[in-house]
């Protein structure tokens, strides 16, 4: 379905506008945006659901 032989990242790469430099820059920005969303929203949400950081004793 259009991903070709080089997977989804290749697909994204080919659909980014501009020459290789601009594509590389855009990619970096995209990666940073993803990391930001993960650190700011996804991980804080996921953390309490995972059994790594309970430090108190309780009855529950």
């Amino acid at each position, binding site marked *: 379905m259009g*991903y*070709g*032989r*080089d*997977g*989804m*990242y290749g697909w994204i790469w080919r659909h980014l506008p501009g020459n290789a430099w601009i594509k590389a820059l855009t990619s970096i920005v995209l990666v940073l945006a993803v*990391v930001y969303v*993960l*650190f700011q929203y996804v*991980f804080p949400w*996921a*953390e*309490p659901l995972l*059994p*790594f*950081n*309970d*430090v*108190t*004793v*309780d*009855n529950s």
Partner: protein
Amino acid sequence: MTVSVLGELLITAGLVLGLFVVYSLWWTNVIADRAANRQADKVRDHWAQGDGGTGGPGALDTKDGIGFLHVPAMKNGEVLVEKGTSTKVLNDGVAGYYTDPVKAVLPTSGKEGNFSLAAHRDGHGAKFHNIDKLKKGDPIVFETKDKWYVYKVYAVLPETSKYNVDVLAQVPKESGKKKPGHYITLTTCTPVFTSRYRYVVWGELVRVDQVDSERTEPAELR
């Protein structure tokens, strides 16, 4: 071609998990320390302003924190102590005193009982990371606006169930004590990087020093 997409997804998942480790063990410390420092400064400012020669438990401002815990054996400076042990409180890189399931008795009340505290072992400031370095006889000092409460560790429980709320009892029998006294209890999770068990350290009050005008630290901290 579906294989390459699947491979990419697996690599991506690996990277995300790696990032989660970075987040848990580094980034949460950065933001927790920032929050803790801000709140600690506020408490110190309040104390410095003195609000009219108060002293005594009535002057206690529990919102920003009630004092600082100094544990030389943990080598982590001072730890702000706040009310409650909810995730929200502890994630600010502080130690919280229990309000539930067993209410901590604050040393400032002067009453006999157990001053029970919890803090993170890893991430979010990791204030009790080095709890395993504490040995019998080591000092734990709690600093308030006008007093230094000097405790000495007398018992350690390196591993117990997370449901063992008896360790917080006003007279913690598991530590070997039978009579009421002024106790302090530190709890955190163990082994490191997991939450399977709880690590518990008990101390007993040996001395209360008055804070002087220079806030000279008690001998245990020098």
